[in-house]
């Protein structure tokens, strides 16, 4: 069954591409996405009891490729199907392109490769699917063929190909010492092995994966973020909501597999760096899409802190934050798309009065903003609660700081909601197909907060309980830092020249390659000698 969940979308994509017209392609896209969503709900239900395993081609043992769905991967498949459904409804009327056929062909392949990544149990298959997803994503991001996006797309693709070679080399060592490519079997034989043998494969593989999940400090961020600027809205939403999650999911799988040498502390620090600097960069941006893009990096840092810290509650908090992030970040990107399309600009200083002009979009976006900042009763508050209460005191300070950074950047973002619009004259025409997913996701941000523990139980089968007074205390901290963030932004940050200077920071491809090498060297030294 799992094989068909991946192969049937691919086959349908090629069939639609080869035989259908643009209009049919669009309608079929929505229909197939809905069907996939239903199937993935079914998958979540059946994996609640036991792991579902499929051997491709029913060869015995580990000779063939084995696909596995446990409750975690089923949840990620569900998110993937949900976001692609939302996105296809969103762009149902919007894309007046001539070549919608090609666009949907690529989108389907992207979805299939994500689902494949979540279900794959084979290390080489992961490599193949990573290549497919990167390639498709880059082509989609350059879809409009603007020259700037082609330059950034090229840098991104080159850097990713370099990073994936590190992964492949590490995989070679792993195959040599374990004689297998199946994750479970490799994990078993690694458990019985001398740690000294695992250092090089671990460092090489993690360099590749950390690059994919934008965790390599400073330099792996830029090419990706620059790509958002000119990407179609829908693609930016998928990139931020899902691609980062796919890489993080692999990161978790590999940390689990390499448990004897896994450098939890190292990635905790890396997560903190990513979180803080992502927030700083987000504060300095003026383009609303870029604020969201840098903010994604900051949130990935927070999730990494949660899952690397150790302790079950913090881990679950990190996972739930990943799920929540997929929802609210997609909602925000879609809202940003509607807003910038309607105002004709993406400059945060030029847009005013969204609340008045398009109240539904405004409210949905506000719900997502509240969710992301961890305001009480919204989805972010539950996940941040679990991370916050189950980490040590040093990390607590960091989590508060990260929250503050998020709030400051969203104070900047929220300025688009209020005030008076210059465009008050021409009324905003609401497009139903665009509104439905946005509003639905906004509502989900609220529901995910109010019914947080039930959602966690449904998704991860983890009986988490929220202590009322601790939650109130947490809410107090969030509200205090909201007030603090507002004043800090208003009186300390806003209008400084340094913001402009930081915004212009850019790194060249050579520096990116050098940073990958430095990261590898640091990892080898850290794991090998400490």
């Amino acid at each position: 069954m799992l094989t068909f969940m991946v192969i049937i979308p691919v086959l349908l994509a090629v069939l639609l591409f080869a035989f259908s017209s643009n209009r049919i392609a669009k309608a079929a896209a929505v229909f197939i996405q809905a069907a996939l969503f239903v199937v993935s709900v079914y998958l979540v239900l059946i994996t609640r009891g036991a792991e579902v395993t499929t051997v491709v081609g029913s060869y015995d043992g580990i000779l063939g490729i084995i696909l596995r769905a446990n409750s975690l991967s089923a949840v990620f498949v569900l998110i993937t199907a949900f976001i692609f459904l939302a996105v296809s409804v969103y762009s149902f009327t919007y894309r007046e392109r001539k070549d919608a056929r090609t666009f949907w062909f690529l989108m389907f392949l992207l979805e299939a490769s994500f689902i494949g990544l979540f279900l794959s149990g084979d290390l080489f298959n992961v490599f193949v699917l990573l290549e497919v997803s990167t390639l498709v994503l880059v082509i989609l991001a350059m879809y409009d063929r603007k020259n700037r996006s082609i330059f950034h797309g090229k840098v991104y693709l080159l850097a990713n190909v370099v990073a994936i070679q590190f992964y492949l080399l590490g995989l070679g060592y792993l195959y040599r010492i374990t004689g297998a490519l199946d994750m479970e079997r490799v994990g078993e034989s690694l458990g019985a092995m001398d740690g000294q043998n695992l250092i090089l494969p671990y460092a090489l593989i993690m360099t590749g994966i950390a690059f994919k999940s934008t965790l390599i400090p400073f330099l792996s961020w830029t090419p990706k973020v620059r790509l958002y600027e000119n990407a179609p809205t829908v693609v930016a939403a998928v990139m931020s909501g899902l691609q980062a999650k796919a890489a993080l999911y692999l990161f978790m799988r590999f940390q689990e597999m390499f448990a004897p040498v896994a450098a939890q502390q190292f990635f905790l620090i890396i997560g903190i760096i990513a979180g803080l600097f992502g927030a700083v960069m987000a504060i300095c941006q003026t383009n609303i899409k870029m604020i969201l893009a840098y903010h994604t990096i900051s949130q990935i840092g927070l999730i990494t802190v949660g899952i690397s810290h150790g302790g079950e509650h913090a881990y679950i908090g990190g996972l739930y934050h990943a799920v929540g992030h997929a929802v609210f970040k997609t909602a925000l990107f879609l809202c940003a798309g509607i807003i910038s399309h309607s105002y004709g600009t993406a400059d945060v200083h030029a847009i005013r009065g969204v609340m008045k002009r398009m109240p539904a979009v405004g409210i949905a976006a506000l719900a997502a903003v509240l969710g992301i900042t961890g305001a009480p009763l919204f989805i972010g508050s539950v996940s941040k609660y679990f991370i916050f209460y189950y980490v040590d005191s040093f990390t607590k300070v960091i989590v508060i700081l990260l929250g503050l950074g998020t709030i400051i950047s969203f104070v900047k973002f929220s300025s688009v909601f209020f005030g008076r619009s210059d465009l008050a004259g021409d009324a905003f025409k609401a497009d139903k197909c665009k509104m439905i997913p946005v509003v639905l996701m906004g509502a989900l941000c609220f529901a995910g907060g109010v019914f947080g523990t039930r959602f966690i139980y449904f998704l991860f089968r983890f009986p988490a309980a929220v202590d009322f007074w601790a939650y109130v205390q947490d809410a107090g901290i969030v509200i205090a830092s909201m007030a603090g963030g507002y004043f800090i932004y208003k009186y300390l940050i806003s209008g400084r020249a340094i913001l402009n200077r930081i915004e212009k920071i850019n790194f060249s491809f050579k520096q990116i390659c050098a940073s990958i090498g430095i990261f590898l060297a640091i990892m080898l030294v850290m794991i090998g000698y400490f």
Partner: protein
Amino acid sequence: MELFSLALFFISLFGLITSKNMVKTVIFLMFMQTSVIMFWLKMGIESTAAPAPPIISDPNMLKDIADIADPLPQALTLTAIIIGFSVTAIIVIMLNHLFRQYGTTEWQEIEEMENKKSC
């Protein structure tokens, strides 16, 4: 034996860091892919004699498995080669696009023009 591939891997990393031209970057990227593929193929060959290809026309050959090359890395590297070439083709077509746009394939010149545009 794997020292050779590791050496080429890091030589091409050096090349990627220092090369000033996109054409050279693409060449070094292909070197990197080649070095990884060579690493995969050399794995498990400990004897100095050349191993036999994994084509079994007669079951007696299976008596001494150590003399036959491992078929799995070969199948995997075939996949990796085709993937690598497809990616390279896309990179080259982007290179063409950039050359048409900027009239050069030098990293530094294009980056300068890019930055000027974004300011």
